[in-house]
């Protein structure tokens, strides 16, 4: 084991050494060199924190129908709730939901769906891709043809078809997003694993008679991680956008528990009549969320890619 580990991570410094430049520190300092990416990361962190603590900070639970009153519908930003006196800082939507509360809950759903489906798709895609690269031959041929087939479908079309078959609900959306996205991970991991599996340390591990599972998981996989992390950030942003699109089309989550896409869609019809806030604010939040994730992903790619190393 010690031999293998040394081969996998040859630059790991000895424990206790005065490591001025650990890989993590180097990574962090390189990442924060880019001001824009730093700003994006901070913004994203704020959004995530707000989304996580939303139930404790919002004045209204927008999913509790007993708290939402259609009498308060379409109030412009700054109006007050007649009963509780709470100010609707960003106005209300067509059903009388406080838009600020609804947006924070919406971000919560969007992020949860994006991250969860991203993680599951990554787990499935990475394992399958690794297996394809390591096994080769027919197994590889079969897996990669399935991936090709999958990637030849437009993502939104495939997701719509799946939702039509599976029905509505958050679990179904996640299943659809995983189905749409695993292939990207599989392809990325396979390409990297193919390169890695021809390197000497893998041959050494083979010579030592280590099991296939061990070589795949402990030796090849860790070296495929950097590109995988980059793909994962980009795909999470895609998943959030895709979920918003599905909800906008009215096939995503239930009407009474709107995510960002559904909030935008609900306000869409009021755009012409001057009630801009119903679509506008959720739209901005969706835009900022996806953009910050993408900016962070870009910087991750620049930092983790050895070819761009100075």
């Amino acid at each position: 084991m010690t031999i293998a580990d040394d081969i996998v991570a040859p630059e790991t410094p000895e424990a206790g050494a005065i490591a001025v430049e650990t890989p993590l520190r180097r990574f962090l300092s390189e990442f924060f060199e880019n001001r824009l990416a730093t700003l994006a990361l901070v913004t994203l962190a704020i959004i995530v924190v707000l989304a996580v603590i939303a139930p404790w900070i919002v004045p209204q639970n927008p999913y509790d129908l007993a708290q939402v009153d259609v009498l308060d519908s379409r109030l412009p930003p700054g109006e007050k709730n007649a009963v509780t006196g709470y100010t609707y800082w960003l106005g209300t939507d067509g059903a009388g939901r406080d838009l600020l509360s609804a947006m924070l809950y919406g971000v919560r759903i969007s992020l949860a769906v994006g991250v969860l489906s991203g993680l599951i798709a990554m787990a499935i895609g990475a394992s399958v891709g690794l297996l394809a690269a390591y096994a080769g031959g027919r197994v590889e041929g079969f897996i990669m043809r399935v991936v090709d087939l999958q990637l030849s479908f437009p993502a939104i079309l495939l997701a719509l078809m799946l939702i039509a078959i599976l029905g509505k609900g958050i679990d179904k959306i996640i299943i659809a997003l995983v189905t749409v996205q695993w292939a990207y991970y599989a392809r990325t991991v396979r390409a990297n694993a193919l390169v890695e599996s021809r390197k000497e340390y893998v041959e050494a591990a083979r010579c030592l008679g280590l099991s296939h599972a061990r070589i795949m998981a402990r030796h090849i996989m860790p070296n495929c991680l950097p590109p995988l992390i980059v793909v994962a950030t980009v795909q999470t942003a895609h998943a959030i956008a895709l979920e918003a699109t599905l909800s906008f089309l009215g096939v995503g989550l239930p009407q009474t528990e709107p995510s960002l896409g559904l909030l935008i869609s609900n306000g869409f019809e009021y755009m012409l009549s001057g009630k801009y806030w119903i679509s506008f604010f959720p739209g901005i939040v969706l835009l900022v969320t996806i953009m910050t994730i993408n900016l962070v992903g870009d910087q991750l790619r620049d930092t983790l890619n050895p070819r761009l190393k100075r």
Partner: protein
Amino acid sequence: MPFVRTTLVAIAIAAFGLFSPALAQDLRIGLSAEPTAMDPHYHNLTPNNSLLSHVFERLIENDEKQNLIPGLAESWKAINDTTWEFKLRKGVKWHDGSPFTADDVVFTFARAGNVPNSPSPFIVAKGKTVTKIDDHTVHMSTAAVYPLMPNDVATIMIVSKKNADGASTPDFNSGKAAIGTGAFKLVKFTPGDRIEVTRNDDYWGAKPKWKTVTFRPIKAGPARVAALLAGDVDMIEDTPTADIERLKTEPKVELSQEVSNRIIYFFVDHSRDVTPFAKGKDGAEIKNPLKDLRVRKAMSKALNRDVMVSRVMEGVAIPASQFLPDHYFGVSKKLKVEKYDLEGAKKLLSEAGFPNGFKLTLHGPNGRYINDVKIAEATAQMLTRAGIETAIEMLPPGNFFTRASQGGPGGVPEFSFILVGWGSGTGENSGALRPLVATFDKDKGQGASNRGRYSNPKVDQLIDEAMKTVDDGKRAELLGQATDVAIEDLAIIPSHYQVNTWAARKGLKYKARSDENTLAMGVTE
């Protein structure tokens, strides 16, 4: 908001530059749905019936309030219990110049119910024996007494035997067989784009003002409004409620409104002992609470119809107390709109054995009725306040109606609680009572849309009796009584009557209609 305004103004200016205003004799109308064919017997659907009324005519027509008025028949009367006599109008010419005679009527009634591949055929043409007496007299007879003969006849458009004999639906769509007697002639039907008609200068009745009329289907509500504001069309139907308030202040636009014959209502599962979408608060199976009149009454009391109308429908609807608005034939004179009473609703629920309420799912179509999703959402809020924790699931209309009619095991209606609408095509109350609350009976042709499987011998008996009564006053009274019994038992829970809004450019007036038809004949300057 200023940004939106500026954008709109920019769009309007751009559009005015591109499309020069049409000539005074041309009219362009934006439709909310496209007709599926130019064959008047192919598909019994409002967009088709509305458009084809320009080209074809019926023996009896409906005026804008759905009263029967003479069309191609000058007069009609029952000559005995089972036979009606129609005196046809003389001197009427088809668009190809040939004369209109009794042969055309006989031919039409043989064709109307038998068009191949019809998605929704005119079954009312069936079961009637049509006999030519002379060139301008026909007799129509039925096996049993049938007082609704004139109402049925008023739904069938007469086609020319010479042109339509052997013609298929595509022949009508190409214009070859679409030869009518109407005020307009069909010029061209371009599916997905437009339908053009031109004035029939030999028309027997009042000649319309417009030389040419172009109908353009623009499905999305905001796009339709934008097209009107841009001057791209002169008039639009089905104006979205979200835009009405703003359009009222728009100096370039004039609105016209009419209560429609369409009621928006809720059906509950009246028949099953355990209904799939009603559960205890803990999610456990419970016996169907909706069979209890007290529960239905509580739901009706919990529904705040004034808020529904003022907030959800933005004032463009009327709270409903029964199947049809008050001025229709055969409605109840005594039913009042149920008052909103949250405490009363909670009390009734406790009495019925649900002091903590229960869980219920409301199903409905997504985009079939004006604001249907919002109505469902508001309903869920109102019922939840009363203790009935209501979830909503809105489905694509095609999917919804199939499942709501026959999606359950053994072909029964699948859902427990649904949001639906009904427009009485005959323009009188039996057109709602027979399909909705008469006991479901395929052979008798009753209860076809009774998706709650409501069954009450008293209601059935009153409807049956009414259908055997030729005397109008007597029949209206019987239908009114049947309505009283059905609504007091909350066979359906009425919400509101739809109000349809047409918007036209300044200077145009539209005689708004209760049957939702958009007719160029009704547009004046």
